[in-house]
């Protein structure tokens, strides 16, 4: 114990270099743990976002694209699905329930999702948890809206508030559907998923606002009216890529929508997943894609895995650089400390004591660096958490350290200890050769 105090006092004597070394190790550890934390939290966050949904169906596109657009709102949908197709597929005997989704609008930077009561009834997240209302209830009229917890909290809405939806999913939109305001009927409890950042409105509501925005549909001033039939077909295709459901020319409020962006499917038995997927993929009416969310997630991980591993490797090297900085700091201090060691030797310290003083110092510096790094990590996550959620839709928790993170920290400490053996051995050799007189 007394030798430990000696090591601490010796370190205190070199506050500046020790402090800088600790700071550099701390920063590198923060980077390493931060990358790891974001990696695992992103995976957890993505995985927890949807559960209990067996298939997701959208227009023909890549599985990852469909997953990102329909579940996370991170990508634009490629195309729409005709309502008839949705209804036809929903009738499949193996399907227990479906949730239609209509995307493409936003409110104050938050995603607006057109759906119906099935979303509240069947959508599950995390470990098959269902949605809970904290205020009010699910909308029953076409101009009703339900808010995610964060939307309500950040924008200060309550049940009964009027909101105006904007066209497009960006933060800033120049087209406001202000002729068709929605009234908040309820607010959902926090889920830690993109649901918190979503405004739910009815499919009919979405159609209604676009009908208002495109009076050509209602009043016959269709700018595409003069185009030949073949071109008209092409124009319809363009129209469909408008990322949201559109209305039929003879659309009236309260009628069925003509198109949706995607829909979730819940099966009666999960074993039917592949056959239903094949049925959807081979659907004659239009080109559709059905994906298994878990499989699509795996594909997504395969894409980001290389990048993640590269990032992790880079941060591991940064830690190594930090530890090398410590090695340099200790090595340069060795010569001036040989005299100190000679004094200790003269009063009875063994070469092993001298060795353990240096290795102990390296261990302490590393340990303090790691501890400070963890503290920095938590401080950073506390500050950056809302920002990450806002920018990337990822709900990164600053929870307790995982086993893997502890292993990483342990590895850093061990590496610090091993690196400390280099100057430790050197001073050991010095103290054997020097005795009580320094021979430089």
């Amino acid at each position, binding site marked *: 114990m*007394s*030798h430990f105090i*000696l090591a601490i*006092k*010796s370190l*205190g*004597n070199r506050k500046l270099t020790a402090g800088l070394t600790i700071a550099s190790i701390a920063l590198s550890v923060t980077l390493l743990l931060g990358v790891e934390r974001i990696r695992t939290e992103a995976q957890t966050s993505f995985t927890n976002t949807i559960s209990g949904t067996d298939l997701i169906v959208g227009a023909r596109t890549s599985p990852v694209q469909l997953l990102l657009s329909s579940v996370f709102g991170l990508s634009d949908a490629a195309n729409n699905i005709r309502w008839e197709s949705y209804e036809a597929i929903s009738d499949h005997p193996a399907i227990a329930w479906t949730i239609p989704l209509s995307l493409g609008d936003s409110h104050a930077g938050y995603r607006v999702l057109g759906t119906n009561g099935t979303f509240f009834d069947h959508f599950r997240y995390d470990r098959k948890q269902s949605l809970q209302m904290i205020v009010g209830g699910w909308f029953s009229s076409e101009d009703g809206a339900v808010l995610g917890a964060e939307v309500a909290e950040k924008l200060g809405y309550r049940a009964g508030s009027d909101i105006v939806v904007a066209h497009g999913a960006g933060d800033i939109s120049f087209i406001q559907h202000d002729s068709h305001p929605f009234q908040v009927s309820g607010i959902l409890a926090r889920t830690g998923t993109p649901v918190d950042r979503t405004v739910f409105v009815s499919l009919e509501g979405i159609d209604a606002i676009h009908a208002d925005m495109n009076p050509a549909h209602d009043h016959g001033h269709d700018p595409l009216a003069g185009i030949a039939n073949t071109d008209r077909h092409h124009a319809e295709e363009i129209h469909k890529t408008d990322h949201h459901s559109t209305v039929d020319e003879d659309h009236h409020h309260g009628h069925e929508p003509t198109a949706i962006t995607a829909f979730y499917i819940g099966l009666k038995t999960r074993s039917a997943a592949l056959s239903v997927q094949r049925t959807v993929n081979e659907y004659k009416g239009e080109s559709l894609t059905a994906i298994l969310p878990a499989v699509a997630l795996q594909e997504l991980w395969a894409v980001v895995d290389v990048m993640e591993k590269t990032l992790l490797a880079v941060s591991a090297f940064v830690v190594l650089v930090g530890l090398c900085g410590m090695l340099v700091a200790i090595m340069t201090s060795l010569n001036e400390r040989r*005299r*100190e060691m*000679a*004094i*200790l*030797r*003269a*009063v*009875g*310290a*063994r*070469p*092993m*004591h001298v060795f353990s003083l240096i290795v102990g110092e390296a261990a302490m510096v590393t340990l303090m660096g790691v501890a400070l790094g963890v503290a920095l990590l938590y401080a950073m996550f506390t500050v950056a958490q809302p920002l990450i959620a806002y920018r990337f839709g990822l709900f990164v928790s600053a929870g307790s350290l995982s086993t893997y993170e502890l292993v990483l920290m342990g590895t850093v400490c061990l590496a610090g200890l091993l690196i400390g053996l280099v100057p430790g051995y050197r001073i050991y050799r010095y103290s054997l050769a020097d*005795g*009580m*007189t320094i021979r430089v």
Partner: protein
Amino acid sequence: MESDIRLRAKDYPMNPSTPFLITPETGHERIAPIHETAALAVDVSDLQFGWDTAADPILDIKALQIAGEERVFIEGPSGSGKSTLLSLLAGVMTAQKGAVSVLGQRVDALSGAQRDRFRADHIGFIFQMFNLVPYLSLIENVTLPCRFSKRRRKRALRRSASVGAEAVRLMAHLNMADPDLLKRPVTELSVGQQQRVAAARALIGAPEILIADEPTSSLDAHHREAFICLLFDECAKETTTLVFVSHDNSLATMFDRTVSLTQINHARRPRIQIVKEAM
């Protein structure tokens, strides 16, 4: 070289048959692991030491004996191997040939760890300069040997309630009783004060042998003599043998005996000296 050996058996406080039994006044402890028939504090015979084992040795001493409580001055020019001899006596290094007995114990026969313990228990050191560990307080510097030697700690506690109190007592003996002085960082002390702190550290826990390696070379003549007198007083109180090494011959008269290292060392002289003499 027999003429170099003059024992002061008359001053031995102990019966030669039980040579290292401390007097009842200082505590009834037997100084283990000293051989009971030993009468000499230091007994060196046929010693040869060289940094490079293949080359000629730099130290070749047929015999050197120092009696208990003797105050011996070992003089020799710079580079004559004084510090090396002290390292051999203290068991920090071991000779290639010969026997080194300290307090009756063959130091060269002990293992490295045993030598370290022996040194911690029985030998106090004062260096020329840079005696103190800069990041330790004055009291911590003085009590440093008690961290490494249980024996010295025990002996310090016989005199005072704590090792810290013993350090304060020793500092008072060395004319550094001022509490403000004791609180000052050691780096702010004058060289003379630092040397007294080093002396207190060497004396704490009453080691049997005090080795001083040019401890006065950075002091002026007045302080030098005062410091040596202080050392003599403390050594007399503790019945400590003093081995004092210096190149400054003017101090020799203050000691019981002077040993000239150049005379007892039969190693071949450095080549550079031989060349000079030939010219």
